[in-house]
C-alpha cells in the first residue's frame, strides 16, 4: 500500500470539494447573503488540503487495488465531514447533524435533519444541492476526469466507487471514460434545468432541482418538496429522475453514437417493466382508496412515487405516508431493487435482481436433468460466475446490513417500523423512510449516535458495501 500517495489523492479530492464551495460563495455575494459560514468552511478545508499536500510531497504515484478501496472509503467520510462545516458554522445544525446532512448529500440519499428548509439562506441550500450533484456521478470519478495523473491507478478508484457488478469502460482510456460520463451528466443537468424553468421555477430553484433530480438525490429547497410546484414540473421531474436512474452508458451511446440498440439492454427493459408493473398496481389501489383524485392525479402521484423511490431519489409529490400500507410496502421493495448499474441510484441494482431471478429456473431445471448444464444468459452472453456470486453476496450483505442497522436503531429507541425504514433508506440512498421518518418528516429527532450510524450506512451503501467491508478483512492489511 502506498499510504503517502493515498494522502495526496485524498488532499486533492478535498481540494475539489473546497473548490466547489466557491460557487455558493459567489451566489451569496450576488444575492447579498452572509457568505461567512461558507468562507470559514472553505478556509478550514484549504488548510487541511495544504497540509496534506505538504506531507505527501515526496509520494510516488502508484496505486494498487487496496489503495483504491482505502481512498474511496476515507475520501467519502472526509468529504462528508468537511462538506458539513458550512451548516455547522451557520448555526442550526450540530456536528452530527451536519455530518449526516452532507453524507446524505454526497451519497445522494436526500434524508434531511433540517426542520424548516425554507428558513435557510439560498447559498447554503445551493451548497446542499451541489453535494448531491457531485456525489451522484462520483467525486473520485470527477477527480479522474480532471486530474490526468490520477489516470495511473484510476481503474482501482473507479472500481471502488462506480456502482454495479461490472465496470464497463466506454473508451479505451479511463480518463476519457470519466470525462464522457461527466459530460453526459452535465448535459442532462442543463436540459433538466431549462425544463424546470419552463415549468415555472425561478432559475435558482431550477438549478437546485436539476442537480438533485439527475443525481437521484432528492434534496429540495421547499418543505413540501416537488409537491409545491405545478403538475407540469412534477412530470418533468419524473423524466429527469428516470434518466438519472438509467445506466449512463446508455445515455452516452445514444447521445454520442446515435446507437439506438442501447435500448435493447435487458437491464433497461427490466427497469422499464418494474416501473410499469409497480405503477399499475399502485394506481389500482389508489383509484379505490381516494375517489377524489382524477385519473391524471392518480397516475401522476403513483408514477412519481414509483420512479422517485426506485431511482432512490426520494422526492415526494404528495404525502404517501397516508397511503394504504400495501403501497408503502411496495415502495419499500422498490428501495431494495434500486436503479440500474452505472446510474446515480442506489439499491442492489436491477441487473443483480435479473441475474438472481434467472438463476432460479436454470437451477430448477437441473433437478430434472442432472447432467444438463443450463447456463443463464443476459444480453445473449452467458452470465459469468463472478457476476452471479457478486449479486448473491451483495443481496445477502444488504439484507443482513439493513436488518442489523434497523435493530441497532430500534435498540436506541426508535420504533421498529421507523428504525427499519431509516436503515433501509440510508443503505439504499433513498431519503424518506416510514412512520416517524416518512415522506414529509425529517430526521432531526434521531439520536446523535443514530445519525452517525445512518450517515455511515449511507456511505457504505453508496460504495456498495464491499469497498468498506474490505477494510475489515485481515488480508487487506497484509502485503
Amino acid at each position, binding site marked *: 500500500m502506498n499510504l503517502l500517495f493515498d494522502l495526496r489523492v485524498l488532499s486533492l479530492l478535498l481540494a475539489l470539494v473546497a473548490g466547489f464551495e466557491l460557487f455558493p460563495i459567489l451566489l451569496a455575494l450576488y444575492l447579498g447573503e452572509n457568505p461567512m459560514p461558507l468562507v470559514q468552511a472553505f478556509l478550514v478545508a484549504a488548510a487541511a488540503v495544504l497540509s496534506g499536500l505538504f506531507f505527501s510531497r515526496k509520494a510516488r504515484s502508484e496505486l494498487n*487495488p*487496496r489503495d483504491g*478501496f482505502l481512498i474511496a472509503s476515507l475520501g467519502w467520510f472526509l468529504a462528508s465531514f468537511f462538506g458539513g462545516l458550512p451548516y455547522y458554522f451557520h448555526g442550526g445544525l450540530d456536528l452530527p447533524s451536519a455530518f449526516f446532512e452532507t453524507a446524505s448529500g454526497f451519497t445522494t440519499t436526500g434524508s434531511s435533519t433540517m426542520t424548516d428548509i425554507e428558513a435557510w439562506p439560498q447559498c447554503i441550500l445551493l451548497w446542499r444541492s451541489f453535494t448531491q450533484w457531485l456525489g451522484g456521478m462520483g467525486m473520485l470519478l470527477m477527480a479522474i476526469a480532471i486530474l490526468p495523473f490520477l489516470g495511473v491507478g484510476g481503474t482501482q478508484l473507479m*472500481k471502488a466507487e462506480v456502482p454495479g457488478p461490472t465496470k464497463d469502460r466506454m473508451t479505451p482510456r479511463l480518463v476519457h471514460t470519466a470525462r464522457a460520463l461527466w459530460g453526459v451528466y452535465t448535459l442532462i443537468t442543463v436540459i433538466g434545468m431549462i425544463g424546470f424553468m419552463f415549468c415555472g421555477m425561478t432559475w435558482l430553484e431550477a438549478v437546485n432541482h436539476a442537480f438533485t433530480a439527475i443525481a437521484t438525490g432528492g434534496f429540495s429547497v421547499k418543505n413540501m418538496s416537488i409537491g409545491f410546484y405545478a403538475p407540469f414540473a412534477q412530470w418533468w421531474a419524473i423524466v429527469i429522475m428516470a434518466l438519472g436512474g438509467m445506466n449512463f452508458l446508455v445515455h452516452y451511446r445514444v447521445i454520442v453514437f446515435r446507437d439506438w440498440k442501447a435500448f435493447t439492454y435487458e437491464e433497461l427493459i427490466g427497469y422499464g417493466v418494474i416501473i410499469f408493473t409497480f405503477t399499475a398496481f399502485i394506481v389500482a389501489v389508489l383509484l379505490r382508496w381516494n375517489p377524489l383524485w382524477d385519473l391524471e392525479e392518480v397516475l401522476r402521484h403513483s408514477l412519481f412515487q414509483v420512479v422517485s423511490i426506485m431511482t432512490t431519489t426520494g422526492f415526494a409529490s404528495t404525502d404517501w405516508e397516508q397511503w394504504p*400500507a*400495501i403501497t408503502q*410496502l*411496495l415502495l419499500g*421493495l422498490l428501495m431494495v431493487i434500486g436503479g440500474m448499474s452505472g446510474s446515480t441510484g442506489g439499491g442492489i441494482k436491477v441487473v443483480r435482481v435479473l441475474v*438472481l*431471478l434467472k*438463476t*432460479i*429456473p*436454470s*437451477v*430448477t*431445471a*437441473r*433437478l*430434472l*436433468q*442432472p*447432467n*444438463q*448444464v*443450463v*447456463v443463464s444468459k443476459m444480453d445473449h452472453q*452467458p452470465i459469468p*460466475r*463472478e457476476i*452471479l*456470486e*457478486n449479486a*448473491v*453476496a451483495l*443481496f*445477502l*450483505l444488504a*439484507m443482513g446490513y439493513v*436488518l442489523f442497522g*434497523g*435493530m*441497532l436503531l*430500534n*435498540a436506541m429507541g426508535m420504533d*421498529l*417500523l421507523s*428504525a427499519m425504514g431509516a436503515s433501509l433508506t440510508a443503505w439504499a440512498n433513498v431519503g424518506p423512510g416510514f412512520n416517524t421518518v416518512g415522506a414529509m418528516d425529517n430526521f432531526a429527532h434521531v439520536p446523535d449516535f443514530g445519525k452517525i450510524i445512518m450517515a455511515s450506512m449511507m456511505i457504505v451503501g453508496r460504495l456498495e458495501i*464491499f469497498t468498506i*467491508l*474490505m477494510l475489515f*478483512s485481515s*488480508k*487487506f492489511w497484509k502485503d
Partner: protein
Amino acid sequence: MNFSLNIRILAVVSAILVLFKLPALALAWHMNEPVAPFTYAVILCLGVSATGFLTRRAGLEMQARDGVLAVILGWAVMIFMGALPYYFSGQMRWVDAVFESASGFTTTGSSILTDVEALPQSLLFWRSTTQWIGGMGILLLAVAILPFLGVGGAQIMKAEMPGPRKDKLAPRMAATAQLMWGIYVGLTVLCGLAYYLSGMSGLDAVHHAFTTIAIGGFSTKNASLAAYPSSVQWTAMFFMIVAGINFVMHYRLIVTRDVSVFRDEEIVWYLLLMLVAGTFCTLIAHSSTADNTLEPALRHGFFQAISLVTNTGFANVDWEVWPLYVQLLLMTIAIPGAMAGSTTGGLKMVRAVILFKVLGVVLNRLLTPERVMLVKFNGKKVPRDILDGVMAMAFAMALALLGATIFLVAVGMDVPSAYSAALTATINVGPGIGWVGPMDNFSAVPDPGKYLLVALMVFGRLEVFTVLILLLPHFWKPERILVSAGSPLRKRS
C-alpha cells in the same frame, strides 16, 4: 411420466396414515372420547388406498419427475387426510384444520388453537403424531418399508429429504431409509424416557418426544414448555440440539464410534451459533426483572436460542416481552436452521456456511482479481451445481418471503406480524412476532393468509425446488422435447 406408479404411491401413503391414526383411535376409545372423527378419517383414507388396487400392473420405472410429482402429491394427500380428524371433531373449520395439519406435517408448529388444553387428548395425540411423521418424511418411510419403491427411491429421497448433502448410509436406498428411520425411532424413545424421568407424565412425555425429535414444536400446554419444571426444560434443550444434528453423524457416532464427526465444519458452526445466540439471550433475559438470577436467565436465554436455531419453536418464557430488536434477532438466527440431514427447516446450516464463504470469495476477488478462488467445505471444493443451488435457494426463499409479506399485509396484517408469519412458515419454525408471537396463535390471520402460509410451509419443507419445478414448462412436456431444447447450452458431463 409414470402416473399409475404415482397413484400407487399415493395409495401407500394413505395406507400408512391409517396405521398412524390407529393409536390415536385407540386412545380415544380408551379415554372415552369421541371416536367418530378418527373412524370417519380412517374410512376415507382406506377408500383412497383402495385405488391402489387399480394400478396393480404399474411399471416400476421411475424418473426424476416422477419422484417430484410423487412427493408433491404425497404431501398434499397427507395434509388433507391429516386434517380430517380435526374437521370431523367439529372443533375447527376446514381452513383451520388444513393449517393445523400442514403445520404439523411440515414440523412448523404454528397453531390456530387459542386453547390447546381444551382439545380432547386423542386429537392432541394425532397432532403430535403428524409432526413425528412429517419430521422424517412419510415417503421416506414408504421407501423404507416397501421394497418395490426402492427402485425409484433415490428420486424420492432427493425430493423429500432436506439438505444438499444426501449421504447414503447403505448402498441400497431402502436400507438407507430403514437406517434413518431406525435412528429416528431410537432417538424418540430415548427422548421420551428422559422426559418421563425428569418429571413429565407418561402421555406428555410421548407427545413431547415426538415433537422434539421432529423439531416440530407442538405442545399439549398453552404455556408450551414453561408449564413444566426446569429439569424438563433442560432435557428439552439437550434433545433439541441432538435432533438438529445430521442423522448420518448419529449413525457414524453410534454404530462406528467415529468421533471425527465433531471436526465437521457444519456441526462446529451449528454449535457455535447456539452458543453465541444463547449467551446474548441470557444477557437479555438477565436484565429483565423476573430472571435476575443466573439459572433462570441461562435457562431462558439458551432455551430460546436453541429452540430457534434448531427451528423447533418451543418457548419456556414469553419472549414477546423482550425488546423488539431481540425478537427480530431471534427470528433471524432461525433462518440458517440446524444441520442438513436432520429434521430441521430453514436454509440448513451447511448452506448458510457456504453462502458466507461465497461472500469471502467475492471480497477476495476484488483485492486479487487474477487469482482463482474456490469455495471449500471441509477442505473439499464445493461443486458448481451445489453452489448454484445454494445461491438460488437463498434468493428464492427471500423472494417467497417478500411476496408473502406483501400478500399478508394486503389481507390486513401489520408489517412486523406479516413478515414474521411469512418467515416462520417458510423456514418451519412456528412462532413469530406481534399477532403471531410465541404465546399467541394464528387464529387471527385472515383465511386467504392461512392458505398462503400452508403453501409456504410445504414450499419450505420440500426445499423450494421440488415445488418450483412444477412451474417449469418442460416439466410437463414429454421427454424428447426436453432433451432437444435448443436454447440452453448443453454439455454432457
